[in-house]
């Protein structure tokens, strides 16, 4: 690694240009894609990589795709190596050969200059459907990869510019909405094309040798920034375990995720040894996805100017033994592995919170809940409704967790209730914050979202993938854990509680209500400013009872003022009653 830049101005101009190419690829997909998954949730990523497949510049899109390209390119290079030709385009989605889960389709294009491969344009998009037993190819209750859809190892989608008819015809027969899938694939191809043109202009301007040198320098520069930032952190080893309730197949069998962070000098290792063996349900990770979760946490606590590229990855090693849920082997099912990624983010933050008490937030809502309602209209045409809800952030060492906000790991949007009602046989009965759901703290957990759905067709299958029903989002440094998630069904005027993971039949008029779990709080709730408690009470986000029993704040409900004397007494009482003098690091 070089220690300084040879040309700090030319370098910065080149770096900005390269990043803007990666962003322009991302914008091309945003502009030309068909599906809402891509447009509203930006469940896709783009990058420019060097001839060896190392990511140099990645577009600003989905954290969960961090570091997904190196494996995809390595698998493609392994298979095609020197047999790549100008005009070739490669596609793959097989989690066991470079992919992540089947809906994520990589489209990769080698870029040539005078017959020599000089770079790759790389894209990954979550496709609407890749076949398999459930529409959307996203089911959490598949138990082997073969149920999940069409597996594509690295293959040529275009061979020297000629389309691979075999591949396109197989796709057309295997996916449920070929028009939409092909539309989104065209968007990926357009992004690769834009990158190829922009890269040719760079070479025309700087010469191929200088372009390669600059790309190498970007990796060194990023590594230097990363290591300089790591060097400032304390040395040592911190470990943490969090749990997934169960995999939805073996009900009630908790799944431990364990990470040990080892930091020495300017190098860090995240070791997932000790994590559960892979499971039957479709929540198994590829190693690349485990890395994405790990890197997301580290990027969040390191300086913002550090780029997401191979230089960053050099300074941080991620280890996960094969055969675990963190690095699954065939025939593991992977489609709903998002849940494991979210919980890994909670796990890494749990370890980091011990290392850097003033920089890390308490556990957020635990990631999104997937709700699927599908069936047939009276005229036998199918309908399928899929929605992923995330909610709120854990309390922070400097501020409350955000109420009603996307998760750090997947910056998703929430579909409009009105649009849903025009397109689906459903009515959305509420979309609101749940009072008291966030863990109490000096800085409380954010308030999560409740959604309720009423079916207006005769019958449908309801599938829900929720979690944090048994293992609640933890609080930090005295902050309390958040409330568990909750599923309810109102049928025939009777309300009943359901489990976190559901597959069941809904009938006309039935109402399904989902409460997202509450994030944890940060810091001793008895040290929260009583006026902030009062404001939350006035806003009906915290109840009078919680103000009194969790925060020790006594409020005169009719005048909406804090009774200071009663508050001092109540806080002393609560302090005496609890079993600790210094706050516990973790509460769950």
């Amino acid at each position, binding site marked *: 690694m070089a220690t300084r830049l040879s040309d700090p101005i030319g370098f910065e101009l080149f770096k900005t240009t390269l990043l803007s190419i990666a962003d322009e690829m991302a914008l091309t997909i945003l502009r030309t894609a068909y599906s809402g998954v891509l*447009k509203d949730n930006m469940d896709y990523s783009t990058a420019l990589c060097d001839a060896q497949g190392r990511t140099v510049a990645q577009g*600003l899109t989905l954290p969960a795709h961090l570091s997904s390209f190196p494996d995809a390119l390595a698998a493609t290079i392994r298979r095609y190596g020197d047999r790549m030709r100008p005009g070739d385009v490669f596609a793959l989605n097989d989690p066991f050969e470079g992919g992540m889960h089947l809906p994520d389709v990589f489209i990769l294009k080698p870029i040539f200059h005078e017959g020599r491969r000089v770079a790759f344009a790389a894209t990954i998009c979550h496709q609407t459907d890749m076949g398999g037993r459930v529409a959307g190819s996203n089911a959490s209750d598949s138990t082997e990869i073969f149920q999940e859809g069409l597996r594509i190892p690295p293959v040529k989608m275009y061979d020297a510019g000629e389309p691979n008819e075999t591949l396109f015809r197989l796709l057309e027969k295997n996916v449920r909405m070929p028009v939409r899938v092909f539309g989104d694939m065209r968007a990926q191809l357009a992004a690769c094309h834009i990158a190829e043109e922009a890269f040719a202009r760079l070479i025309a301007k700087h010469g191929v040798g200088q372009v390669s040198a600059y790309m190498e320098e970007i990796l060194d520069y990023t590594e230097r920034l990363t290591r300089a930032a790591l060097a400032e952190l304390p040395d040592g080893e911190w470990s943490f375990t969090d749990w997934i309730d169960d995999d939805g197949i073996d009900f009630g069998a908790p799944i431990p995720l364990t990470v040990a962070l080892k930091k020495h000098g300017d190098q860090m290792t995240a070791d997932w040894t000790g994590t559960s063996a892979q499971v039957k349900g479709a929540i198994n990770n590829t190693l690349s996805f485990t890395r994405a979760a790990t890197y997301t946490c580290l990027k969040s606590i390191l300086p913002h100017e550090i780029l997401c590229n191979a230089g960053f990855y050099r300074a941080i090693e991620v280890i996960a033994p094969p055969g675990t849920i963190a690095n699954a082997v065939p025939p593991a099912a992977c489609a709903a592995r998002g849940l494991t990624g979210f919980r890994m983010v909670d796990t890494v933050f749990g370890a980091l919170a011990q290392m850097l008490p003033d920089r890390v937030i308490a556990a957020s809502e635990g990631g999104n809940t997937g709700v699927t309602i599908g069936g047939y209209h009276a005229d036998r045409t199918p309908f399928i409704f899929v929605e992923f809800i995330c909610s709120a952030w854990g309390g922070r060492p400097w501020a409350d967790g955000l109420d009603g906000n*996307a998760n750090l790991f997947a910056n998703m949007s929430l579909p409009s209730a009105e649009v849903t009602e025009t397109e689906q046989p459903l009515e959305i009965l509420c979309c609101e914050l749940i009072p008291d759901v966030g863990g109490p703290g000096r800085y409380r957990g954010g308030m999560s979202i409740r959604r309720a759905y009423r079916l207006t067709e005769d019958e449908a299958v309801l599938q829900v993938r929720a979690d944090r029903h048994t293992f609640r989002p933890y609080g930090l440094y005295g902050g309390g854990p958040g409330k568990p998630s909750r599923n309810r069904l109102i049928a025939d005027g009777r309300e009943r509680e359901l489990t976190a993971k559901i597959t069941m039949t809904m009938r006309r008029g039935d109402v399904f209500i989902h409460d997202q779990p509450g994030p944890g709080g940060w810091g001793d709730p008895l040290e929260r400013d009583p006026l902030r408690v009062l404001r939350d009470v006035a806003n009906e986000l915290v109840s009078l009872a919680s103000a009194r029993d969790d925060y020790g704040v006594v409020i005169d409900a009719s005048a909406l003022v804090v009774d200071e004397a009663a508050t001092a007494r109540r806080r002393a009482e609560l302090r005496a009653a609890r079993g600790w003098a210094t706050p516990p690091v973790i509460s769950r």
Partner: protein
Amino acid sequence: MTTSSSRFRVAVDIGGTFTDIVFLDLDGRLHIKKVSSSVEDYARAIVDGLREVFDETGLGGRDVVEVLHGTTVASNALLELRGARTGLITTRGFRDVLEIRRLRMPKLYDLTWEKPPTLVERRLRMEVGERIDARGAVQQPLDDADVERALDRLLGQGIEALAVCLLNAWANPVHEERIKSIVHRRAPGLPLCISSEVLPEIKEYERTSTTVINTYVLPIVRRYLATLRTGLDGIAVRGPLLIMQSSGGLMTGDAAAARPMHIIESGPAAGVVGAQALAPRIGFAKLITFDMGGTTAKASIVEDGAISRATEYQVGGGIMHGSRLLTGSGYLLRVPAIDLAEVGAGGGSIVWRDAGGALQVGPRSAGASPGPLCYDLGGTEPTVTDANIVLGYLNPTALAGGAVKLNAARAHEIFQERVAEPLGLPLAEAAYGAHLIAASNMMRAIRAVSSERGRDPREYALFAFGGNGPLFAAGMARALEMTRVVVPPAPGLFSAFGLLYSEVEHHYVRTWRRPARGLDPADLAEAFGRLEAEARAQLAAEGFTGAAVRIARSVDCRYQGQSFELTVPVTAGASPEEAFGREHERTYGHRAGADEPVEIVSLRVVGQGLSDRPRVPERVNRPGGPDMAPRTPPPGGPETAPRIDRPGGPETAPRTPPAASRRAYFGPRAGWIVTPILTRGDLATPREGPAVVEEYDATCLVPPGARAKLDVYGNIVMEV
């Protein structure tokens, strides 16, 4: 400028620190006045400024035909959270729509992200029992008692304005209208906006947010416009007051007081309208406008005579976080606005070296205070303007004709110490690097409106204005392989000029979801007819009828299953389906097969009120000859300029004559070159670069190898 028979149109553009007033008489003579904005009372500054002009010139209010006004009153109220204490009534279960937003955030990996404070706190958001379904049928009647209770509680908490947004009110407004009548009865005079009137469009968050913003700024805007009108009446200005909208059209003061949501981005719109008006005259069908001041740079596009518009934008979220990929940073407003890309880069942007050893410019800015080092007002960090001083691009002794004295030595010294030495580079090279990196950052705004929209910037001319635009334009154009740059007269004042070119215009939209195939034309005509009637009624109230009214219809369509729409014009003969297919092909490079169903989502109507004469004469004459520059603040931070109160008119004010030449640096290859310092008039004879054109309000750089000349309208046209 003393003939009292003259008839003047007056444009008033309010900025944060200065108010520009431009008088244009019907023969094309132009006069300029610049006064300090009185922040507590913007209206007073305008009226005082006008009165001063009258005193100086012998003109009177009766000579003013109309007053055109671009204002930041509404956006300031919003950004500084000084709007009315607003209540919101909504359907049970949907109290938090405003706060949950679209859930997405504009930043990744940032644990410090905070949502902008919600405009209506939760305690002021009340729910009522009612339910209308997506087809507009009443499922659960409105509970009047609920409404009364909610209203009592809100009034008890001292609200000053009330917004109402019920679920599915786009499909049937009956419950909102009922609430309106209850409020009128119970709280007459309380400013009230209901979503089905403000924005009858599907999507509850977008409609709620827009309705709330309109309500929140309404009392302030209404008060401001009333004060201004009274002030104008007081100096006998009887002509209409027309306000610039975010869309680039004008609306009457009365209309703006009812729908202030349309004037939030009033300020930056006018310059783009000016460029649009000039484009055909100067023979460029395609322009990219580039407006750079002290803290931000903005780009937009004008093509084939049309401005590019967005159907929604985020107020306060305009500064790009490196790209346009991430949205959600500001307050969502779903009304048409000129599509501007903005980056936080200007003369005040700070130049620094990062931990990895790379040279960086911005995003922090020295802003108005303390400003660049060379202003000697306490700034301690090198800025882009300081780099331009080091490079010899800016006059090293003074700007604004001597009004602002500069300390170039200080800029040299600290730039050397803070930037050049740590980088191990000669001073000039480091400054040149800062200039290039600033340009590179701003090019992202240009790319955002061109290549990121599938347009090739090489087919466009760069139209540069603002105090700093002409200094960077040629270099940026070269880097983007654009060949032409146009710098209009008085580039620092161009926004005020733009007002003079604008027409009265209103935009209407209504959600109307139908399959495009098998559409009954009578149904479509009837739905359009209702929107059109609304437009005609509004225009009639503003004095436009018959041939003075122009109506344009368009539809938002998509392929069924897509989650976004394209707007296509509706013309006699062509089906919306076919027009959509063509537009899809043009925008995205492909269209689906003929059997792919197309869906209409919304109908749009634009009503224009056309004035009975050209808005601006063919040629504008500034007294004092073509080389006379109007008076505006210096580049690098107009905010720091002293108060300038000089009337326009024959050139009498003393000016520092520009030095004939000075050394300027053009990169390691070209090195230092003795560069002639010119006035705009000198370009009547075409010149080769390098040259620096110094004007009162801006400095234009003609780099080596570029060629500059004046066209017949007084624009500088550069071939780069």
